[in-house]
């Protein structure tokens, strides 16, 4: 990793995000899931984050099938300064991640100033009992890989629609592994529907795109391989502000990993500083990040008001 990624690409900080270990939260035996995840986090701290290379940071994997256990794990491991976020991993309860059943995890994350990471593959294995794509299962890998974006889109919509960012105004969500060209298509549809259906979710007080811009960041990996690079930039510009939404990620060592120069070539140079560095620097909880007291919610999430605007 040092030779192929860290040194070769001059990576100053790398967030280690596990690989297939992220499937463990959905193990049918929830007690086993909790224990192997604790073991994995301990191993991660001992093996990778104990100071051998100070470019390395990690994510806390959580046994999300029992959200209280997951919150306890966030509090147990999250004090380690080299842990910079919470990895939700596989969908353990089988509900979209904005569902209130998962909220104890977000409460703990906010308490420790950690962002939550939603990684592609969240609903990929039969253990979840959810589906990795809508309308039936995909039958080929190409089909699977492209549509693996769908559960992440649904989880993101759920975070916003279920008022997670109202209940925890300081919660930050990082969406990883599905590129970026989907953003306008999903968010404009969401914004359009919000105008007419918001009475159903009065705790969603702002148009969905505003939550995306204030609380969510999205990985560049895998950068959309549009026929011409300017096509991606053009549709991101049509949505606007992409340079503030995206954080570089390589995806190393996945088959479709992107190296720095590939991404740099395809995105405007004026965006580079933010996407390669600044955005992640202000988003993750790095050592010495000053922890602010989390803000209280301004609305009561889940409560219908008799007077509706």
């Amino acid at each position, binding site marked *: 990793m040092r030779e192929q990624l860290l040194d070769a690409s001059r990576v100053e900080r790398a967030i280690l995000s596990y690989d297939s270990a992220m499937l463990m939260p959905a193990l049918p035996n929830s007690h086993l899931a909790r224990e192997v995840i604790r073991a994995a986090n301990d191993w991660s701290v001992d093996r990778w984050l104990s100071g051998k290379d100070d470019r390395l940071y990690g994510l806390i994997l959580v046994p999300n099938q029992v959200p209280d256990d997951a919150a306890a794990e966030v509090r147990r491991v999250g004090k380690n300064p080299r842990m910079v976020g919470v990895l939700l991993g596989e969908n353990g309860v089988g509900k*979209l991640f904005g*569902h209130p059943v998962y909220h104890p995890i977000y409460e703990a994350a906010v308490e420790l100033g950690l962002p939550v990471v939603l990684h592609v593959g969240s609903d990929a294995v039969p253990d979840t009992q959810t589906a990795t794509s809508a309308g039936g299962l995909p039958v080929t890998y190409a089909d699977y890989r492209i549509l693996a974006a769908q559960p992440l889109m649904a989880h993101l919509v759920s975070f916003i629609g279920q008022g997670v960012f109202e209940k925890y105004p300081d919660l930050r969500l990082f969406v990883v592994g599905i590129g970026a060209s989907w953003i306008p298509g999903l968010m404009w549809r969401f914004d359009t529907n919000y105008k007419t259906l918001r009475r159903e979710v009065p705790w969603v007080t702002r148009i969905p795109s505003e939550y995306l811009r204030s609380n969510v960041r999205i990985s560049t990996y895998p950068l959309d391989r549009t026929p011409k690079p300017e096509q991606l930039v053009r549709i991101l510009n049509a949505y606007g502000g992409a340079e503030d939404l995206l954080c570089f990620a390589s995806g190393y060592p996945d088959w479709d990993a992107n190296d720095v120069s590939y991404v740099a070539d395809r995105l405007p140079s004026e965006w580079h500083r933010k996407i390669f560095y600044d955005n992640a620097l202000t988003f993750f909880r790095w050592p010495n990040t000053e922890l602010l007291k989390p803000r209280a919610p301004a609305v009561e999430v889940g409560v219908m008001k008799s007077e509706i605007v």
Partner: protein
Amino acid sequence: MAKYQGPVIDSDVHHTWSSDDDIIAYLPKKWRDYVKGSGRAPMRIDPPFMTYPHVNGPNKRLDTFPPNGGPPGSDYETLCKQLLDPFRIERAVLSFDPGGNGALDNLYFATEVVRAANDWNIEHWLSIPDDRLRSVVMVPTQMPEEAAKEIRRVGKHPRIVEVLLMSNGLRRPFGHPLYHPIYEAASEMGLPVAIHVGGQLCEGGNQNAVAGGAANSRLEFHTLANQSSIHYLASFIEHGVFEKFPDLKLLLVEDGISWVPWLIWGLDAHYKILRSESPWVKRLPSEYFREHVRFTTQPLEDTPDPQQLIEVLEAFEGMDDLLCFATDYPHWDADDPMYVSRKLPEPWLEKIFHKNASELYGWPIVSPVLRRQGSPSD
């Protein structure tokens, strides 16, 4: 409609029966007895849907309830008065509401209800001497061979112009070979296949309406409702449906359009892998897409500035050849022609309001003259 004065074709109008009795009358006797046995309430002929109550009550425009009773879309005069006449619609494709009857759990009963609805449709609506009316054949999606028979039986009618797929009866994406008998029959009859959003919500096909878990509000569901259609489109290409049936056209109804670049670029980018698994995919996915796939415009994404949507479509090298105007009348979020003509560039309007649909349905280019000859409401 100051901006656009040409003909308008509406590719998605929802019509329905006043009462279930209208359809039950068309069932064979044994099934009539099954539905309406003595001493009990009749069984339902519409499959239940997942429960996402609408904030308006029904998911219809509240002004579309006909004055003499019955649900929105059940009365021809109201339809003329609210839609066809004021917006100068030259052709309207009546598409049931929503047409998921093939998803009733009892698949034999479902098949009979679908046949009855098609017969009722022809006698009740398509015999009205109004040349603006066209309609679709509903099919029992749980029984593709029966569906193919139904297409061959009903599809000969000159005013039946499309095969409607609504419920996902076999819980496989619609490009799956299980469904190919439907496409063979549609191809044979020269009818495009339309997939209407929402079919995964009903009994008999209910699964994976949204990836990752069930949405918890109508807002969230409605936003994600196109996920299935997105998968169906990918599966049509992946399973080589357009190689197997080179004349087949697919119309995606009510799915929005601004997501299209993401999917098609993604498919093209994965072409090598796609080919290794699906060697029958001989051309770039985008080529099949542009040749075979069309979209209805409604619900058009309401971007802060209309130019933002246009910019996405232009970055994708245009979709003006692929869009067919639709109102979705009488649904709550219906778009009227004035709204759409304000949102889209003027040079696209002739294509989107009538030329693309005429080509899709194999009609000569319609003109206002035709309407005046055929319409009793003038």
